[in-house]
């Protein structure tokens, strides 16, 4: 009867004492989330199926973040559809431009997702909230429509791979580097259909922002969810944000794992993922001297305050390379405001960067920094697929904010230690 944290949350939400890998369950969701791309499709399906009222207007989040502020007329229509549905259904967690942020940064920040929750989102990076000890996973618009009607979603209980990170991270090594290393080792389908449980001493050195980055990229290894047991840092993060009760789950000793993988993080150095898959991971040194045209610091992966602090520390008293565009996108309005308060925005602007309002924007090739044919970007985002940030013959390299910032200064992929002696 031993269970992992993932099994326990799924059991609790399906009214069972025990669930085992492979079992099909119908579970109640604590939150169902959609954005301006997936939401309108879900709303159409909801209406086609005869839906009149959502199951609970407090348990749905609708966030226009991908192509918002509206990038063109068609996007404006999608955002309008989302807004009208939110109004009609009196959705509590609807965030208008000016108050919205990138969904996976906004919801943890605002205390809308909490430990022990079961969250589904019509966005693949919904797995982010696992960093707080929640089970959260991406679904499509039809699943989301079904959840908006019934409050439920079906799942196959996944097997779990346990990743144990031993030791203390080296200077300039962040949560992003640990997850890139992991994806590089196991591949983009290395955790297909599975739960990825992250544990080990090294995680205690990471900020909650860095942990959110790790769970965020579980999907890039094919994972169903990425999850960590809450610790003191988690509780400290939750303390002033939670407006409702929550439950802490931890894995039982000797719970069943399909595989246990150990990493000594003292062997891990800052990483870069080369085009066109997140598994093409090398040490920064192996990619240095690759020239770049654009740098993006932002996204649901690395657009949080800690990311901005690190990037600003690297960029301070430097200038962005004359032929490089540095685009900084704080993930939420709160991050934006905190950056101003801490003087981070000024550091970026003085260096010659553009600082945008929150949006997913260029990460998925929407707008705010699209690449021309043959151009190359280094980005703190999560995917470097063909055409991801623009022209199908452009290239995206993935890295941490520190490496991206150092690269913006030099105009080529650069280890942060090369431009500053400040450690993070």
């Amino acid at each position: 009867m031993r269970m992992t944290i993932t099994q326990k949350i799924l059991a609790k939400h399906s009214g069972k004492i025990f669930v085992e890998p492979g079992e099909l369950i119908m579970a109640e969701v604590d939150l169902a989330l959609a954005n301006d791309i997936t939401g309108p499709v879900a709303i159409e399906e909801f209406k086609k199926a005869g839906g009149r009222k959502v199951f609970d207007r407090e348990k749905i989040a609708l966030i226009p973040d991908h192509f918002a502020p509206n990038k063109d007329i068609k996007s404006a229509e999608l955002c309008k559809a989302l807004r009208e549905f939110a109004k009609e259904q009196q959705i509590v967690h609807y965030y208008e431009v000016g108050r919205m942020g990138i969904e996976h940064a906004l919801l943890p920040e605002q205390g809308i997702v909490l430990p022990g929750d079961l969250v589904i989102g019509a966005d693949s990076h919904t797995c982010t909230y696992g960093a707080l000890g929640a089970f959260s996973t991406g679904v499509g618009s039809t699943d989301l429509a079904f959840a908006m009607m019934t409050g439920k979603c079906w799942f196959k209980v996944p097997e779990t791979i346990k990743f144990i990170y031993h030791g203390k991270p080296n200077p300039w090594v962040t949560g992003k580097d640990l997850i890139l290393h992991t994806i590089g080792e196991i591949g983009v389908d290395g955790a297909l259909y599975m739960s990825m449980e992250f544990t080990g001493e090294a995680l205690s050195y990471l900020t909650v922002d860095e942990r959110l980055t790790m769970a965020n990229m579980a999907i890039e290894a094919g994972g169903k969810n990425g999850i960590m047991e809450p610790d003191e840092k988690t509780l400290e993060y939750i303390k002033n944000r939670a407006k409702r009760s929550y439950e802490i789950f931890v894995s039982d000793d000797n719970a069943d794992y399909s595989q246990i993988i150990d990493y000594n993080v003292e062997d891990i150095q800052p990483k870069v993922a080369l085009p066109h898959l997140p598994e093409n991971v090398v040490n920064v040194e192996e990619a240095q001297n690759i020239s770049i045209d654009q740098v993006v610091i932002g996204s649901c992966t690395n657009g949080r305050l800690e990311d901005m602090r690190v990037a600003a520390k690297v960029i301070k008293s430097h200038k962005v390379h004359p032929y490089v565009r540095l685009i900084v996108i704080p993930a939420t309005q709160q991050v934006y405001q905190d950056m101003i308060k801490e003087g981070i925005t000024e550091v970026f602007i003085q260096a010659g960067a553009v600082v945008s309002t929150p949006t997913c924007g260029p990460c998925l090739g929407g707008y705010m920094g699209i690449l021309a044919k043959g151009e190359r970007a280094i980005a703190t985002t999560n995917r470097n697929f063909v055409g991801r940030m623009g022209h199908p013959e452009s290239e995206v390299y993935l890295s941490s904010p520190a490496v991206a910032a150092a690269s913006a200064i030099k105009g080529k992929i650069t280890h942060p230690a090369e431009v500053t002696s400040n450690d993070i």
Partner: protein
Amino acid sequence: MIFKGNVWVFGDNIDTDVIIPARYLNTTNPQELASHCMEDADPDFSAKVQEGDIIVAGSNFGCGSSREHAPIAIKSTGVSCVIASSFARIFYRNSINIGLSILECNDGIENISIGDELKIDTDKGTIRNVTTGKIFSARPFPDFIKGIINAGGLLNYGKGENVNV
């Protein structure tokens, strides 16, 4: 269900940005999505593909985004079925939910070539290569998934009393 059609071959890790690039996600119109399907892998795919054709691909087909626009785009080109050695999880769910037939098959499908004619029986899980005479077997769906397909998709399934699995 039985499908008969000609094959288009794609490799491993065909991601949702290749299936339907995000620059076209400012619409939900299925025909418009279909006109850009697989564009960054084969710019002429949507013009060349015929009603009933079959996609055969390698591992992790549909990895990346949760966009349901991806299976919608494929279905709207007229493609009858996608066969791959494995599918990414969200794409797999989405295909079932919108009624795009998919089959997971590890039985040497790399030997299927572009233009081959296949005859597929999804109930039996058999794939016959009419051109070469070879027969492959695919993993059939679990009963629960069959239930969703037979109900005509997830939302119809939910209307019944099936919600309490």
